[in-house]
Structure formats: structure tokens, C-alpha cells
């Protein structure tokens, strides 16, 4: 494989929680501009792997490279500054802040105004603030939450909160998005919208790593799939191959070998 079209390399990452081997030397790569999904039964280690990529947990072994830069061992905010933004399975929004402020928080790593700029409301900081708002407004519009921009996030419906989280991740113009179960809690209609949006995000040239339980969503939009079971990678390939893979069918549907 040529290195040019590979945006992320995950090399043999391991994670133990006490005696539990949550992620067992998982290795795979993510090509630039694709939707790659990570699937597997509950407890397969998907979220743990996500946390390790995003810097929330440190792997016991192994490394993660983003654009050939080692990101293992970096803090989450440093990973975010590299352009790898994540969303959370159980929404983590600032409920007491407005939609606009939440989304502008996502833009944070693109700005540079510091404490003194803020306190003295320096011209540079005001200009930056205005640019930030101009940047995020189209995102709010695209996700149909522009009318809610001054509402407190805590008062929104779950579907709208999910949209705010996605908008927040997009606000920093990330080159890679890590989506942790973005369809959880959404109804069929909302899930269909989400699928279109994720494909649109990919078409903008961004790479997406997706953890998701909704199989029809995964099979519809993924370019590639990695299957985890008990922390180990058991299959990798395009959706049609994964659907035919005997091992995958066995762990999902059960079988005599189990």
C-alpha cells in the first residue's frame, strides 16, 4: 500500500483493564476520504479503541499514526488540534450553553485569542470571533439547527442535540471524524438523514471512522468495515465481503462453533 492515501495507521494497539484484554493487538489502516466502520458485538472493544485513538486512554502497547505523525500519548486536545475530532456515544454537550456557543466551542482549535485578548476584547479577538461565527453558520444551516442557535442545548430534543454534536465536530474543519454511535437514539427517518449527511461529509474530502450498531446504516454507507470480537480483529473488507464472512455471521447470529 502506498503511504500517500493512508490517513491513519493503527499498529497493534493493546488495552488491558485489569485481567480483561479489552483490545488485543488490533492493526488496520484508514484510507483518506473513506467511511470506515468498526463493528462488533457489545463489549468487543470498539469504544475503547476509539478512546485510544482520540487520546482519552493510553494503549498498553502499540501506536496510532495520523498523517504519519504519532498521536499515541498525546492529550485529547492535542489530537483535536491535529484535525481528528470525535463525537460521543452518550452526548457530551454543554447543556447550559446555547447551540451557537456549543458549536463555536468546536471551532476553538482554529482560534488563537488568549486570556488577555479576551479580557481586553482586542480587535484581533473580535475579528476572529466574527470569522468564527461566519464559519459555523453554514454548518448550522446545513444541519437544520440554525433557528435554534440561541436556545440552550439542554432544552433541545435528542435528535437536535445529536445534530449539535455533529456541528460542533465539523466546526473545526476536521480532516478526520470519529463518530461513536451517531445513530443511537435516532428514529428511522433521522437515521436516514444522518446517513446522507455522513456521505456528504465524506464527499467534502473528510475521512470518517464510524462505530455503529445499526447494521443497515453501516452496510449502506461504509466503504470498508473492520469487525472486532472480544478485542480481536476477526475480519476486514468491503461491506459485501463482510456480509458473506462466515466468522462474522457466526458471532452475530450464533452458531455451533461458538
Amino acid at each position, binding site marked *: 500500500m502506498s503511504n500517500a492515501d493512508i490517513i491513519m495507521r493503527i499498529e497493534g494497539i493493546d488495552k488491558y483493564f485489569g485481567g480483561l484484554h479489552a483490545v488485543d493487538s488490533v492493526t488496520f489502516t484508514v484510507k483518506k476520504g473513506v467511511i470506515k466502520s468498526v463493528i462488533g458485538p457489545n463489549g468487543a472493544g470498539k469504544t475503547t479503541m476509539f478512546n485510544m485513538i482520540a487520546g482519552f486512554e493510553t494503549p498498553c502497547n502499540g501506536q496510532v499514526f495520523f498523517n504519519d505523525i504519532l498521536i499515541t500519548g498525546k492529550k*485529547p*486536545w492535542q489530537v483535536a488540534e491535529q484535525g481528528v*475530532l470525535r463525537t460521543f456515544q452518550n452526548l*457530551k454537550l454543554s447543556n447550559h450553553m446555547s447551540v451557537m*456557543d456549543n458549536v*463555536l466551542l*468546536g471551532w*476553538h482549535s482554529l482560534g488563537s485569542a488568549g*486570556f488577555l485578548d479576551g479580557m481586553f476584547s482586542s480587535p484581533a479577538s473580535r475579528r*476572529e470571533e466574527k470569522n468564527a461565527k461566519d464559519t459555523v453558520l453554514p454548518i448550522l444551516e446545513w444541519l437544520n439547527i440554525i433557528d435554534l442557535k440561541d436556545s440552550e442545548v439542554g432544552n433541545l430534543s435528542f435528535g437536535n442535540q445529536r445534530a449539535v454534536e455533529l456541528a460542533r465536530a465539523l466546526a473545526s474543519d476536521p480532516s478526520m471524524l470519529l463518530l461513536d454511535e451517531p445513530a443511537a437514539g435516532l428514529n428511522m427517518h433521522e437515521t436516514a438523514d444522518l446517513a446522507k449527511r455522513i456521505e456528504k461529509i465524506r464527499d467534502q474530502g473528510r475521512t470518517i471512522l464510524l462505530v455503529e450498531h445499526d447494521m443497515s446504516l453501516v452496510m449502506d454507507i461504509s466503504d470498508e468495515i473492520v469487525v472486532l470480537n472480544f478485542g480481536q480483529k476477526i475480519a476486514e473488507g468491503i461491506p459485501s465481503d463482510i456480509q458473506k464472512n462466515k466468522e462474522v455471521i457466526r458471532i452475530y447470529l450464533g452458531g455451533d462453533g461458538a
Partner: protein
Amino acid sequence: MKRFYPVYILFITIVLIQVLTLITGKGYMLTQLTMSAYYVLVAVGLCMVMGYAGQISLGQAGFFAIGGYTTAFLTTIDFTEKAGTGLFKLLDSMGLLITKDTLYGDTVIHLSPWISLIAAVLIAGITAYALGIPVLKLKGHYLAMATMGFGIIIYRIVLGSAIFGQADGIFNVPAFTIFPGLELSGDFTSRISNYYIAWILVIIAILLMVNLINSRVGRALRSLHGGEDASDAMGVDTTRYKVIIFVIGAIMAAVAGFFLTHYNGGIGPSEAGVGKSVRYLAIVAVGGMANIWGSLVMGLVLNFLSLRGVFGHFDDAVFGIILVMMMMFMPEGFIRISVLRDIRSLFIKLFSRKKMKETIQEPPHE
């Protein structure tokens, strides 16, 4: 700009109160109003740390004492013996030494309060930084305990050290001549000017903080309150932000301590007590946590009543009870943003009827 309207209202209120005390012949009340202003400054700093950034601190009285004792110590110690050294000659040429005659005809040389102001800010800032880095890794009541421990340490140090006057504190702290003709002192004749010095200081602090809240950094700080994971994932260096706002809160407390010590002409160990820290906490809690104006109003009212002796023997108990009641029944504070918004929209409705065509955005309802 719209966000500065409350600042104008504050300024007008301050002037009105002064005029009112003058008309009613209650000018003596300005003394307590001035002292309240300095306590408000501490509360505003704590409001930033606790209300906005969500980091509880029970050590603010310690930082207040650092500011007060630093200046009390540096401006009352006699440097006559060292007057010949190069450093002191340099300070003298810069006008930063004050030579005075004592009652017994000796001359004493003191440092100018300008030096002690810088020292107070630096010592408080460095202490807060050194304390903040390990302590701000803690959360919730663990953080409260750790900062309270710091407060107790400061209290025991000033109570136990001879150079800080032990239980007596340090008195005879000289007036601070800000510039010729404007003196920071508790002198009867400069009561009005000192009232304005204090409140202008508060206004400056509020302006800076209101700006900060509405900036990129302010947004990041506010997001910490909800949970650090999200801020971290969005590229906010949470540790750094928490430590810096903690330092800012500490510096505000130290500056307040500096000014009040010169105003009172001295400082005693009671200013460093944990009871005082609880008092600041109660004020911010009752003011609505993330509400700088609530802290200001409640800080002014409660401190004024307390200093006037309205609570009598129950002074500390009143603040304790307020804190307990707030936590039990109104954890979001008495003056809540949502309540303020309701009041504002009520006013808009009332005024709009009287042909006032102001268009203030109301948040859309779901």
C-alpha cells in the same frame, strides 16, 4: 454594546448611592460600602473560577490574606539600615521609598505601596499557579478540601508568625498615594474619593471579566463546567485553562486584600480564616453561580449588612445557613439567568407597549 448596559447601570447606581448618603446625612455608611466593594472583588474572582469554570475554591481568603499581609509587611518594615545599598538607592531615585519621622524623632524608610502591590500580585499569582497545577486535577469536594487546606495553612502561618503580628495582625499600614492628591486610606476626609476608588476598581474588574466570558477563552471555560471530556475533545487545553482562571481569581482576591489593608490601615488573621472563604462561596452560590452580576449584588448586600452589624452574633452562622439552604433548595442560585431573562422580557413587553421599538432577541422556544 448591549453587554455593557449593566455596567452603565452599575455606575449610575454607585453614583446614586453616594448622592443618597450625602443627602440623608448618612455619609458614614460609605465606609461599609467601600469595604463591601473589596469583598465583592473577591467574590467576582471566585465567580469566574467556580461559577463559570466549575472549579470550587475554599481558599480565596488565603489569597486575600496574601495580598493584604504582603503589603502590610513590606510597607511597615523599616529599611533605614539598608538605605545605603545600591538597590535602595535605585528605588529612592525612582521615588519608591517613603521617608518618615516617627514620634520619637527618628527617621524610618519604608517601601512604596507600588512595590508591595506588584509583590502582592506576583506572590499570589505564583502561589496560585504552584497550588493549582496539582490541586486542580481533583474534582468536586476533593478540590474543595484541598483548597480549604491551603486556606488553613495561610491562616495558621499568619496567626503563628511573629513577623505577621500573630493574633494582632499588622497595623499602622500607611496610606497609599495613588497619585498626588488621591490617597487610598480610611481617613475621614477622603471617604468619598475612597468609595469611588473601590467601586471603579470593581467596575474595571467586571468589564474585564464580562469581556473574557464572551470570548473564545470564556466559552472554553464555561464548557468546563458541563464536563471536561467534551472541552478536551474540542481542542481545549483544560489543565492550562483551569490553572490560569484560578490564578486570575487569586490575583483578584490579592488585589482586594491589598486595597482593603491600606483602607483599613491594617490586617488581622481573621481575614485569612476559612469562615471568610465560606462567606465568599455563599455569596457566589446565592448570586447564581455562573452570574457575575448576581455575585456583585449579593456580595454588596450581604457584606454591607454584615459590616453594619445587622446579623449580630449570628454573622458567620448567617452565611453558613445561606450556603446550606442554597445547596438544598436552589443549587442553581437565587439570581438565575433564566429568572433574569424572564424579568427582562417582562420589561420589554411593558416598554414595547409604550412605543419603545427596541428589538431584543428573545430565545426561540421549542
